[in-house]
């Protein structure tokens, strides 16, 4: 609103001028600002909220310990119920598990650390190989060849009464260090 208004327009001889005019103008702005803020803050939160929500994580049983062979990576498939907004979706996940001589188990996240392709275990070469860009990992998950920036990501595991439980996570691809999504 402008300075022109210090001079009342033709036909507006009762139009307020001076400090009275400034008062009305000020109140108008405050009212507009309050309504604007009162809307902008909740609406921003409303839109942003899903981006700030962490995925609910829980332990999921992925298999029986005795089905794993020592030193032989095994792909374990399991079904989990994932919340997708207001829907519940059954999703199938697969992780790679390696049993150690002491009975401990290492579980690798199923995605290559380079760009997130699914890799597989080559039993003859005894290497994890990614078909996309040729990243190669050894049985401990360390990078042997290819563009992968870091070793395979390990998932938290626990063993309860012979059952293997995993907390599934996803990590940012292409980073030197694992960054959880």
């Amino acid at each position: 609103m402008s300075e022109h208004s210090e001079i009342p327009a033709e036909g507006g001889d009762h139009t307020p001028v001076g400090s009275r005019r400034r008062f009305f103008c000020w109140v108008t702005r405050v009212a507009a600002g309050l309504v604007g803020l009162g809307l902008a803050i909740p609406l921003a939160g409303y839109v942003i909220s899903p981006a700030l929500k962490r995925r609910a994580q829980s332990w999921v049983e992925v298999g029986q310990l005795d089905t794993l062979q020592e030193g032989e990576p095994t792909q374990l498939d399991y079904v989990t119920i994932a919340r997708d907004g207001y829907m519940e979706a059954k999703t199938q996940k697969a992780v790679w598990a390696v049993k150690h001589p002491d009975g401990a188990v290492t579980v690798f996240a199923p995605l290559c650390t380079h760009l997130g392709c699914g890799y597989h275990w080559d039993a003859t070469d005894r290497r994890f190989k990614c078909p996309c860009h040729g990243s190669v990992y050894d049985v401990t998950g360390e990078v042997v060849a290819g563009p992968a920036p870091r070793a395979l990501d390990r998932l938290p595991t626990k063993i309860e009464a012979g059952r293997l439980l995993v907390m599934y996570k996803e990590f940012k691809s292409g980073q030197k260090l694992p960054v959880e999504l």
Partner: protein
Amino acid sequence: MKQGPVYTWLDRRLNLKSVERTLLDEPIPGGASWIYVFGSATLFLFLLQAVTGMFLAVYYAPTPDHAYDSIQFIEEQVTFGAFVRGLHHWGASGMVIAIGLHMLQAFLYGAYKPPREVMWMVGVVLFLIVMAFAFTGYLLPWDQTAYWATQIGLNMVGTVPLVGEFLMKVMRGGELLGALTLSRFFAVHVLFLPAILLTLIAAHLFILRRVGPAGPWTDERAALSRETFYPRQVYMDAVVMLAVFAILSSLALLLPFPLTDKANPSDTSFVPVPEWYFLFYYELLKYVHGPLEPLATWVLPMVVILGLFLWPFIDRNPVRNPIKRPVALVSGLLFLLVVFALLGLSLKNLYAVPRVDPALARGHALFAQFGCVGCHRIHGEGAAIGPDLSYVGDTRPERAWHVKHFRDPQSVSPGSFMPKFPLDDKQLNDLTSYILSLKRTP
């Protein structure tokens, strides 16, 4: 006030000053007044509905599979979700009130008289569009109230002779109230109606600027003060908008508006209650039965709508001073009296405070104590092993049956695996009272 460099820069190119003058220096005959705020309050509410509606659409899914869940998601999971939905819900009511007051002001001030007949007629159509918004928006949550209220609304359209049946099917998108109904109501609510409304608001405002505001009802009063729209009328409008926003925010925060159960087409005993602004009409339909029913369902509404629309041509008295228009004033008053009497009656019937029987609370406590929710579900809470008890008071209203059943479930319901619970006679009665209270309408 100083003008920023951006404004000056733009002004040099776009010549904004003259637009500003046109917009703000419009003369208000007789000077600014708090009585003129209802139009801008209505416009503000429309903008608020548009903004909150856009944001609701961010999460809403217009299919029977997901509509209810997506609204529940907004209510429970989304930050400020309940607030945004609350604003939209209460904003709808606010809009009906604001339009009502705006029309009342225009009526009292005779602002529909020449040369403003077209502005009034466009206004009446705007009012009808808002009612169409209310009707189509009501179905979208896809809960029991939404479903059955819409069912009734559509059936009322069906009573119109000759075309009614066909019209109803078109509105419903076929034989069933279902997926096709929901998606067309959604499209109409969020795309078609806003387009029509925006066009008509533009027309309404265009006419306002062509003929000017009506001002006081006598030329002498209008001549008393001459003042421009800015700053005092703008200030009054802004204060009222802030007040409206404050009221709606408080309502949205303090009075949550929960969903009823998810729409269940097979549950024909659900008694829906329309929004308060349709209540007078709902009440009217209770008194008219049999062959006279079409009179109430469509003849009367048609007459009232046409009467409103053509009012500038019905009331040909050129005087605007309400005191000198007894016929118009009395007929307006009578109309309001009938509407509010019906609304009052309806509210009285609906919200007559039911006497709370202390036995219900004791029965409820027993229900919790014996872990009945382990098998029975009430409004979505509890396991679905035994029958759902949400409305058992409607489906099985006999007290004796329940008493007998609690004593020995298998005696009245052979094969039931419900266990016997150790209840004394008083507890039996309390629990039965509670169970019988589980009804749709208290």
